[in-house]
């Protein structure tokens, strides 16, 4: 059997005439946590759905957990936990009933025991008879994660699991994911949060249905091959538009009271930023962050980031 949890190549998905995913290759080793990043509409959800058999690829082939994604989606579903972008459990069933339903479809034995344990781990034992629809956003996410991991899947596909969840709940969520990963579970998680991306072993970056880059956080930052400076102080915020026009500046953005500027060449960038420096305004070189790297890569790939939000 292959060492890859996911091994797909040339995945293409067209809806009518619109290409949602255009030739994506992913080789993901077992036991890792990978982050799936990219702007809205970049094809993250569509790719995940093709991997777990919820969508039939228009082109391409591949395996998921050793099963053919085109023909063996039933086997894949048995071993995969998929958490949808929107809470998709049954709001008119209680928390316990939802878990029992999922347990039955996975043909688990000792359903009562398993559900009891899951509820205890979640800390929801005392609320088990409440309707799932009445839970707050953070609790819904926890319930969904508990439900998709109950069957001891080999692979977790999480589609923006922490969208709209508070920071503490997000941190707890990620602790849980790393705990599961330590037990050998493979996790592919899509997100818009850079801090979450930094928690992943590898990052896959999609834009307009194409895989722009992949690698560890450090590798991606290195690949971008840029430097970053920060201009900080009173009055600098009004200068943003003019900074953007400078030769040698590839991107500039507000960063609190400062302006964060990136460019390809350190000397060139420093030269053109010097004139903004004053008694009130400081210029310092800072670390390139993941967001800078992505924006640079989007530009390299010929995308205008303003179109993509």
């Amino acid at each position, binding site marked *: 059997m292959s060492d890859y949890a996911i091994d797909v190549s040339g995945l293409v998905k067209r809806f009518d005439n619109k290409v949602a995913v255009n030739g994506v290759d992913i080789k993901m080793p077992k036991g890792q946590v990978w982050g799936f990043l990219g702007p809205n509409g970049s094809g993250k959800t569509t790719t995940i759905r093709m991997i777990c058999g919820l969508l039939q690829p228009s082109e391409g082939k591949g395996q998921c957990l050793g099963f053919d994604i085109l023909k063996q989606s*039933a086997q894949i579903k048995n071993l995969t936990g998929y958490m949808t972008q929107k809470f998709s459990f049954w709001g008119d069933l209680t928390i316990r009933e939802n878990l029992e339903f999922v347990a039955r479809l996975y043909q688990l034995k000792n359903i009562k025991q398993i559900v009891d344990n899951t509820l205890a781990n979640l800390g929801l034992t005392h609320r088990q008879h409440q309707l799932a629809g009445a839970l707050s956003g953070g609790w819904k996410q926890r319930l969904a994660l508990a439900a998709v991991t109950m069957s001891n899947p080999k692979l977790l596909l999480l589609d923006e699991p922490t969208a709209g969840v508070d920071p503490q709940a997000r941190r707890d969520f990620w602790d849980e994911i790393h705990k599961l990963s330590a037990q050998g579970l493979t996790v592919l998680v899509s997100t818009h949060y850079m801090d979450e991306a930094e928690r992943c072993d590898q990052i896959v970056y999609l834009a307009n249905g194409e895989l722009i880059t992949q690698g560890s956080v450090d590798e991606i930052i290195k690949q971008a091959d840029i430097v970053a400076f920060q201009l900080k102080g009173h009055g600098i915020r009004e200068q943003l538009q003019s900074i953007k026009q400078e030769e040698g500046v590839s991107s500039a953005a507000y960063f609190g009271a400062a302006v964060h500027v990136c460019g390809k060449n350190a000397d060139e960038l420093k030269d053109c930023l010097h004139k903004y420096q004053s008694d009130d305004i400081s210029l310092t070189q800072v670390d390139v962050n993941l967001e800078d790297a992505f924006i640079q890569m989007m530009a390299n790939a010929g995308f205008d980031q303003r179109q993509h939000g």
Partner: protein
Amino acid sequence: MRDLTKGNMGNGMLGALHRISGIFIKELIQMRRDKITFAMMLVLPVMQLILFGFAINMDPKHLPTKLQLEENTRFTRTIVAAMQNSGYFDFITTDESDGDPLVTGKAAFIVTIPVGFSKALINNQQPQILIEADATDPAAASNAIGNASTIINQALAHDLQRLNSQSSLKPAVDVVVHRAYNPEAITQYNIVPGLLGVILTMTSVMITAIAMTREAERGTMENLLSLPAKPVEVMLGKIFPYSIVGVVQTFVVLLAAYFLFEVPFTGSVLLLAIGVTVFVLANLALGFTFSTIARTQMEALQLTFFFFLPSILLSGFMFPFRGMPQWAQYIGELLPLTHFLRIVRGVMLKAAQIPDLVNEVYAIGAFMLFMCVVAILRYRTTLD
């Protein structure tokens, strides 16, 4: 200070017109996008016009009639020809082994002309002709029955004139009508068993159609599809609970029929049980198929209504089946309700047994199988 972003027409007639036109345009756009509703608004009136205008006929003609001629004379030939010419009676031949043609529904009337009829006629003894009518639907047979005596006596008047010149005040022939199964022509006897079929159709089709589209509408479909369940398993799991509902409804209607409306219950309980089961499953499978077409619960309801309207009008529930033109009868034969009505009326009123109506069960069964296949083929385990 005045808020300039609101323009100059915040109040007054002109402002109101602007806001109304804004809503008007939005509604037009949305109406055009919602294809099923749009189709409903255009197709439904046409469908109703055709059904009510052409298919429905309160004066049914060409009713299948079995002749039992125990003698063959010029008088009987005159009678047969006159009945046929009236347009009400179409003579058919049936096999004894097929069972009572009134019970199986092959014939609406059995006309018996006894031995010695012609002799009695010549002797002016006012012989009798027996017309046994299937009166389960009082409306279906009434015009034919009402006109039978006149048709027969007028036809014979010409033949008899040459025989004896004496004019008689009483009619030459006494037409005896036996209204079988519903001698008092009680409408409820026909309507109440029929309602069982109508209620089951309405609720069964709707309930499954909605149950599936609800998953899609609430976003739980994606979750359901990501869990390991095959299409057949999902379908059966969805259909069985609602078939229990169908059984409960059946009991309620039958109890009401018996105790409230005093409809007799004369036939095979087993036949009715089989009929109800197959019929409910057929409608549930149809509802499941609708749910693979409709995207929202609202669309599912509209499709149900699309099916429900012809079911009520063309099945023989509201209007006599045999009163409809041939094309409408063909459509009616495709509807499970048509066959179920024959079963339920046969069992309750005509003492029908399984062999009498087994073909109706087969017809519903064929519809059920067809719908199951379509539903499974159309049901997607993917979100494509």
